[in-house]
């Protein structure tokens, strides 16, 4: 993991996790997790359910304890620090608001536990509620407000304590998709304006891409790849990462002649030119290539043959408004291609038509597995 991160001395990040393991009733929920979350970044833990991301977050919060490994927050070892004394706060998936307290009392809870003077509590509560725009709800109880409002209350309740790191466990999971998209943007903007370190757990790859500076993709208790959001999407290292973040065509090939940069490979679609940069596979070895559907360009069948141009037949076509999704067939293999409906450009294609698909060499990514 960690090619997006320069080597750092332990204890220099907002959070340093080293060699953390956690076993539940015979299954390894976390297997040797090490990562550093930088000061002030929006860091996401992304993965399918059961991959261990929530377990890792709970270990950071102190609500669960690792069987092995260390967790440092702000450089301090958290081994003997109970949850209620850690400099982090959590926004829970189900919000976990106190049902018997008003919105105001929910928000002020953390400060009251710290026994701050009443005046200061009032001042900070007012500011926190203004920050997430829930001022008018102060006197209501959680049962009397909507899901989106609950989410804001949960956020204010955590933020008011000014934690070194804010932990968020799928906070938008229960909301409808429109509200969710609005809040994604709002939450990311809030994080940037506060300069607070966020660790965000989600299974929604789009959500992670929209909000995060860096993302750790998790699978079966391990970190599959940790990188900046953009690099993770453009340069997935494994089939899993490529297919979990968006969709991905997989092309099996055998390495032919190496060139600088890139290489020629032999695939089921015929010879292809791959990539830029150094290509570290020996000629004759098998490689797996990935290409995003939107990187594949569609040309009419009359287009002249050329490098990485594959004759295809359109098996299916889904028109979704802004884009058209094509399912293509060539040499018994299928490929998916997305084309923006920009208007005028591109051929008018129907199922059964012949066409030419272009796989740009720079968009063919060599996977490790």
């Amino acid at each position: 993991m960690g090619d997006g991160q320069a080597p750092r001395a332990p204890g220099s990040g907002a959070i340093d996790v080293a060699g953390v393991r956690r076993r539940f009733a015979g299954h390894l929920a976390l297997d040797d997790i090490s990562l550093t979350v930088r000061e002030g970044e929006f860091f996401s833990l992304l993965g399918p359910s059961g991959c261990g991301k929530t377990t890792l977050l709970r270990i950071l919060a102190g609500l669960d304890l690792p069987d092995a490994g260390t967790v440092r927050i702000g450089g301090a070892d958290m081994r003997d620090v109970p949850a209620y004394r850690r400099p982090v706060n959590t926004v829970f998936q189900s919000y976990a608001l106190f049902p018997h307290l008003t919105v105001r009392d929910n928000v002020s809870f953390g400060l009251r536990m710290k026994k701050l003077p009443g005046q200061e509590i009032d001042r900070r509560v007012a500011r926190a509620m203004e920050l997430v725009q829930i001022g008018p709800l102060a006197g209501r109880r959680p049962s009397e407000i909507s899901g989106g409002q609950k989410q804001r209350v949960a956020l204010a309740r955590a933020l008011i304590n000014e934690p070194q790191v804010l932990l968020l466990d799928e906070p938008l999971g229960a909301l409808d998709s429109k509200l969710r998209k609005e809040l994604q943007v709002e939450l990311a903007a809030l994080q940037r304006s506060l300069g607070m370190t966020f660790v965000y757990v989600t299974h929604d790859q789009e959500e992670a891409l929209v909000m995060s500076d860096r993302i750790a993709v998790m699978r079966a208790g391990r970190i599959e790849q940790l990188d900046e959001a953009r690099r993770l999407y453009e340069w997935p290292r494994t089939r899993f990462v490529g297919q979990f973040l968006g969709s991905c065509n997989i092309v099996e090939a055998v390495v032919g002649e190496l060139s600088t940069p890139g290489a020629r490979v032999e695939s089921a679609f015929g010879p292809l030119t791959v990539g830029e940069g150094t290509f570290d596979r020996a000629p004759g070895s098998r490689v797996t290539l990935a290409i995003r559907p939107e990187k594949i360009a569609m040309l009419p069948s009359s287009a002249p043959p050329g490098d990485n141009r594959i004759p295809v037949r359109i098996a299916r076509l889904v028109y979704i408004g802004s884009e058209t999704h094509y399912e293509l067939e060539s040499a018994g293999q299928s490929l998916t291609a997305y084309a923006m409906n920009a208007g005028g450009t591109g051929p008018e294609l129907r199922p059964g038509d012949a066409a030419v698909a272009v796989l740009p060499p720079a968009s063919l990514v060599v996977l490790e597995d």
Partner: protein
Amino acid sequence: MAPRRAEEVRFGERLTRSGELLRSALTSGPGILWVAVFLLAPLAAVAVMAFLTRGASGEVGQPLTLQSFRRLAGFGLFGFDPLYPLIVLRSLLLAAWTTAACVLVAFPMAFFIARLPPRFKTIALTLVIVPFWTNLLIRTYAWQILLAAGGPLSRGASALGVIPRGGALYPGTFAVAVGMLCAFVPFLVLPLYTAVEKIDWSIAEAAMDLGADARRVFRHAVLPQVAPGLVAGIILVFVPAVGQFVIPDLLGGARTAILGNAIQQQFGPSRDWPFGSALALVGMAVVLIGLWVHARTAGEGQDLL
């Protein structure tokens, strides 16, 4: 709610108002009738009885007076005597003590049962209920035998020096305490267990995350969640405990008068039904006032917790 019309569709059925009334009468009628005949009527009789006068040989008749209540308040034939106010107070204290002891015992039990694996949970709950399959009198006599002089528990206690050599745990305050606790604790365990079972532990985690240590997590995140069950249990224990007299009589040696046996005394040997009724009414009034105060403060009460 939509404005009521003469005709409503419910469960896909069109129901006219008269049809609805008929249905209500058929379903709720028997229950209402039962309560009216067997609860409200006797209650009204007791209420009237309390204001009547006892004749020389125990017969009841005119005139209507407050005589019974005056006597109850302590102003009898021989000047002021706080006997009856003390009896009421003693009953309330006994009930309060019983309730407090039951709360202390029921809390750990409810949490323990709720944490058991489902199979053992059923067994544990059955064990809590099993005593009810036996008559209260039989259970109380059983305690007499267990706690009597020469019994294993009394011998153990005297060996430990808790009671004098050859002494007995029965009759006495200890026996009453044990008997009351065992008779009433299931009434608190069951509602409390139901509440504990429904606790949303993520709220407790949220409290801990926000800086509450174990004690404050319990106070601010767990107790408010079990409060409804706790209050229900307290009412279920306190109300009947005020009137309970079989256990104090049988295990306490029938030496102290409390509300229950005082009422029984008036209706039985003393043949003073008006005074017995007055005692019953006052006992009921005290409990009802307690419940009313609770209901009034329930809203804010949750914040106090």
